[in-house]
């Protein structure tokens, strides 16, 4: 005979209609003999019914349309995202090509472990996008800190190139993230986003390891 607490999962499954028939029979037999669990089951059913009956609508404290409308006029046409995302992806290719021309510095400053190993999973399709995003953000923040601290050691021209490319990748990430929110199932965009994360970390690592100009 199961203990009462072991029936709780079954109670939830039963309320959701997910409990197998033989388990349902066992649960019902237990409920017939246990008033405490019967009361719990009744409470659970009441809660689920009450939740389903909660009002489906709520009134915001103000009309949000004027603000939304104001943002729409500055937004691209609904046909634009495809073009913009394609441009964003093209920008990544350009940045990737530029990065391939950059030689890895021979005397590299030591980076912290997460910045060094950050988003190693970026191109690993088995890692979830959320995991990759988390790793990317951590590595990016640490690398930005390093690059920021080394600003005085990098020539203004090089710094400008780095910042321009970072902005380009930022825009690509924004574009792809926005479309993924609306269409989360877009597999190709998922890959492009991972690539964008990877490119940005590559660029930041390169900048963080640049030999001093002196």
């Amino acid at each position: 005979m199961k203990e009462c607490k072991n029936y709780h999962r079954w109670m939830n499954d039963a309320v959701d209609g997910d409990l197998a028939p033989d388990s349902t029979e066992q649960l019902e037999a237990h409920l017939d003999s246990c008033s405490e669990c019967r009361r719990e089951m009744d409470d659970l059913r009441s809660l689920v019914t009450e939740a389903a009956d909660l009002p489906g609508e709520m009134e915001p404290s103000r009309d949000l349309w004027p603000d939304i409308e104001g943002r729409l006029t500055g937004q691209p046409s609904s046909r634009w995202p495809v073009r913009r995302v394609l441009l964003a992806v093209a920008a990544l290719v350009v940045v990737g090509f530029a990065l391939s021309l950059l030689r890895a510095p021979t005397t590299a400053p030591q980076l912290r472990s997460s910045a060094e190993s950050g988003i190693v999973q970026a191109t690993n399709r088995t890692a979830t996008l959320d995991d990759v995003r988390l790793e990317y953000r951590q590595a990016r923040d640490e690398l930005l800190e390093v690059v920021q601290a080394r600003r005085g050691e990098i020539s203004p021209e090089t710094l400008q190139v780095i910042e321009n490319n970072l902005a380009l990748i930022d825009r690509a990430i924004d574009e792809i993230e926005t479309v993924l929110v609306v269409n989360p199932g877009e597999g190709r965009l998922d890959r492009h986003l991972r690539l964008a994360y990877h490119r940005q970390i590559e660029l930041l690592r390169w900048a963080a390891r640049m030999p001093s100009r002196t």
Partner: protein
Amino acid sequence: MVVSPEMRETPRQELAGVDDRLLVKRAQRGDARAFEGLYRTHSKRVYALCRRLCGDGTLAEDLCQETFVKAWTGLASFRGKAAFGTWLHRVAVNTVLGHRRWSETREDLRAEELSSVEHFFAAKPEARSSHGLDLERAIARLPQGARAVFVLHDIEGYLHREISEMTGMAVGTSKAHLHRARGLLREALE
């Protein structure tokens, strides 16, 4: 979307009672007034979803706005396979769950918000029982994961499989969050 001045917008007085499908078609051609019609029809449901998911009224208003802006931007990809409202709900869920500020919502901020829960019921007080209000308060107090799954499953009617797709959590984890949420709510309402 840039609203072309020469593009004829649907006059506001013509919006009432217009079918969603027609409004979507017009909005896909750049008619912002038609999109306003969709906003008027769906905004309260979207806001309710955002409010319950994030447990913060001000943030929910921002996220509701964000949902409609993203929907406008992505409207070309809406093919009409599902109802517009269903698609919009998915956009809202993704917007809330993907929002940095949602994941950073502090416990004290949510606790502060609890005192202003009543204003949500100002519109139709007769339709809300005091028990319903207690339940809303208790939902807002739930831990984030448990709250999200409870709202999506028990209020919005999503299946665990769909919640898993939206949140990236395993179906078993979704069930565990739901059971925990129900247990905590029952304790809170006793």
